[in-house]
């Protein structure tokens, strides 16, 4: 079972991303559990595979609107589909990469896999996942942590 501190690490990674990259802080909605192995997704999802001492996935999923605004806040004018996919992968990568600060080198993370438009393809490897809503401006995204 995941420990509080571990999930907090991911949450901090996510909020920190907004705080630093967009210079605008995000808030966290109340986290909840998903027990049917289907935590759900928005239009764009960046999935990071985790291996080593912990196994599973961490993904960040967000609607297009949020990612577009985030890109613009980062002075990026090109808000094409490709760049949005790039961004969602980068966010996922950063959140998991930052987690190594607490988990150490034995927390091995993969290159991000981006799933766009096809939300059904986003599935969790285990039945139970933690879902943390991330609210930023008027938008909502989700951070999903599904680790053994």
């Amino acid at each position, binding site marked *: 079972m995941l420990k509080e501190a571990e999930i907090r690490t991911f949450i901090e990674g996510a909020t920190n991303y907004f705080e*630093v*990259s967009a210079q605008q802080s995000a808030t966290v909605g109340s986290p909840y559990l998903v027990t049917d192995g289907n935590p759900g997704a928005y239009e764009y999802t960046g999935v990071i595979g985790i291996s080593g001492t912990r196994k599973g996935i961490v993904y960040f999923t967000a609607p297009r609107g949020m990612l577009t605004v985030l890109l613009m806040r*980062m002075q990026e004018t090109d808000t094409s589909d490709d*760049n949005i996919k*790039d961004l969602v992968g980068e966010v996922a990568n950063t*959140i998991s*990469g*930052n987690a*190594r600060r607490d988990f150490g*080198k034995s927390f091995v993370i993969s290159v991000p896999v981006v799933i766009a438009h096809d939300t059904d393809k986003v599935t969790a490897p285990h039945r139970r996942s933690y879902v943390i809503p991330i609210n930023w401006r008027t938008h909502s995204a989700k951070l999903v942590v599904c680790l053994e």
Partner: protein
Amino acid sequence: MGADVKASLKLMIVDDSNIIRRRIERSQQIARLEVVGAASNGREAVELFRRTRPDVVTMDLTMPEMDGVECVQKLVAINSNVLILVVSALADKATAVDAIEKGANGFLCKPFTDRQLNDALAELLSEA
């Protein structure tokens, strides 16, 4: 080195994210640098490095094909004077130590603000 020194150093950007590449290209320090190429994985980077001979490199660590730490080692082997700024989300100390030991000259942790990027590049260039 004054800010008016124009494009005296060649820069290669290695990052699998287009957004990050473009952010680096937007940095204030870029006035002193001439972007000679961008690579999205380690193998591409080594190849491009041989051809363009950059003086400064920004390097992602988590990339397909060849990861950044290995790439740093390869680049330093080709040109030991190259200045490498690692730009990575991997926030653990061991990774940073690894990269520095292999020859990187700076470490910028993702996510970063424009200012942090600017400062990191400026500090790197001050060693040139």
